[in-house]
């Protein structure tokens, strides 16, 4: 963390947690300030995070579609996915993320948005994943989602970035896209991503982060914070293996202070309490889990000391 003032960064971490604990989101002075959702709406009070490049806020937990929404033409399973989306929206969620790599997931999201009439609720997030014609892939992606314009498009795993990133910037400049991002996963190609973050005006990056995979804490997250890049977190549960491994283990005593009811919620609170993190995107096949995940974006958040405790406990148990 040589390029950054680590003390200042960690101090802001504590400040974020304190704000969460006191329930006074939105009063922070940094550009990553939290805000509480409009009480006048029928949505639960969900912690909002700020997208640094515009100041727009989005709910602090999103919905991934990796594996879980790739159900093909199976109508029964498509309806189950729509139920998950319904529970997600009803709990105050907005960001849904997908990729052309995820098989039928984009079609299934489009099906769900149609079934729920939720095109105006979603913060649509997808990717371009090709070393060929990115523009035609994006067109196909739009047709699958049945949306005219995406909120965010990302270069998936930096594939074809020399062609695809300029394409996304051109779309943004032309008003066809609101935000531009780049993704990686599993901690790979972090150095390449950092180089892109330093040299391009990215709105978002997407990386793998959870209490076990913490490499991004050292440099990438502080860099994102410093450069005003919003951060989406993929694999928050390590593809579901973390809650599976922790099943049956009692929650630590200190978790009571946070009001969490599950390991999944504890992990999500760990993630969203990081000041550089904008939105983890856990995937699920169960509406109840979607609601449980969204509930993690309410109430108190852990401070830096408790974050370390969470990582330590989970590190020992898994």
């Amino acid at each position, binding site marked *: 963390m040589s390029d950054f003032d680590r003390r200042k960064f960690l101090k802001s971490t504590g400040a974020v947690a304190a704000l969460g604990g006191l329930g006074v989101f939105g009063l922070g002075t940094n550009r990553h300030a939290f805000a509480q959702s409009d009480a006048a709406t029928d949505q639960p009070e969900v912690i909002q995070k700020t997208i640094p490049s515009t100041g727009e806020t989005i709910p602090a937990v999103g919905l991934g579609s*990796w*594996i*879980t929404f*790739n*159900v*093909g*033409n*199976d109508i029964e*399973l498509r309806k189950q996915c729509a139920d998950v989306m319904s529970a997600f929206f009803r709990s105050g969620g907005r960001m849904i993320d997908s990729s052309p*790599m*995820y*098989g*039928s*997931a984009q*079609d299934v999201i489009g099906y769900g948005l149609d079934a729920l009439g939720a095109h105006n609720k979603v913060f649509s997030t997808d990717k371009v994943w090709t*070393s060929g014609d990115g523009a035609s892939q994006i067109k196909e992606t739009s047709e699958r989602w049945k949306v005219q314009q995406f909120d965010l498009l990302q270069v998936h*795993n*930096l*594939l*074809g*970035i*020399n062609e695809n990133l300029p394409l996304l910037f051109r779309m943004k400049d032309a008003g066809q896209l609101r935000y531009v991002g780049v993704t990686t*996963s*599993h901690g*790979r*190609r972090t150095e*390449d991503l950092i180089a892109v973050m330093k040299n391009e005006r990215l709105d978002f990056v997407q990386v793998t982060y959870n209490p076990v995979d913490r490499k991004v804490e050292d440099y990438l997250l502080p860099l994102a914070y410093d450069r005003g890049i919003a951060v989406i977190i993929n694999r928050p549960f390590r593809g579901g293996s973390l809650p599976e491994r922790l099943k049956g283990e009692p929650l630590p005593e200190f978790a009571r202070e946070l009001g969490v009811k599950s390991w999944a919620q504890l992990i999500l609170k760990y993630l969203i309490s990081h000041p550089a993190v904008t939105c983890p995107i856990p995937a699920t*096949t169960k509406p109840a889990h979607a609601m449980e995940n969204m509930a993690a974006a309410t109430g108190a958040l852990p401070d830096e000391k408790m974050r370390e405790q969470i990582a330590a406990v989970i590190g020992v148990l898994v």
Partner: protein
Amino acid sequence: MSEWWDYGLADLLLFSPRVYYRLFEIMNTTWWLVVVSALVAGVIASGLALRHGFRGNRVILVLLALVWAWCGYGFLWQYYRPINWAIPYLLPGFALQVVLFAIFAARPLPLRFGWRGDFSSYVGLTLVAFALIAFPFVGLIEGRDLLQAELFGSAADPTALGTLGFVLLSRGTWRWALLPVPLLWCVISAGTLWVMDQQVAFVMLVAVWVTVFCGWLDLKNGVTTKRLTEAEIKDPAS
């Protein structure tokens, strides 16, 4: 900066076992008559292939061409393709296999099915029997519903596995041409099943290994290189 070889096998598998096995349930219940017919075709073909002599050779090849065509269109294209982006790249292999069976059926090429009683024949019999009889029940052992049974002639894994057995039950210089596609499918499927933590992955790999071993054994023993006599071709029952 990023290239395709950066991806691991687990990165490219983007569906869950729950969704994968639902494919068979939907296909079995929607197309049950075709699925049963394809299985019966496999049983008839195996009965013909296990007889002494070479009678019914053409019928076996036609039946195998039909089940591969149905498996490619019915299972791969209709059901598997929407959840697996790699299927369009594998479908030409299935089409090639159908064409090969059709060519062998249409022309008097030196390829004949029949029981020889050697080691490869027993291995071939085991593979065919496993694909036709045992494979549908593998799911039961792993706790799945019988409606999700993978049946020869419709599901790709038992069809490829059984085809390896049929090839081992044949003789002739051109039989190797029928091996690459089912062998390749078994290897790919083994990888897929392994990533999904399915024990049956090992069966697919063992099938590949024994087929290659028996192919080598037969080559050494002259089963594949020994040309059929004019008498054998003229009198399939001999």
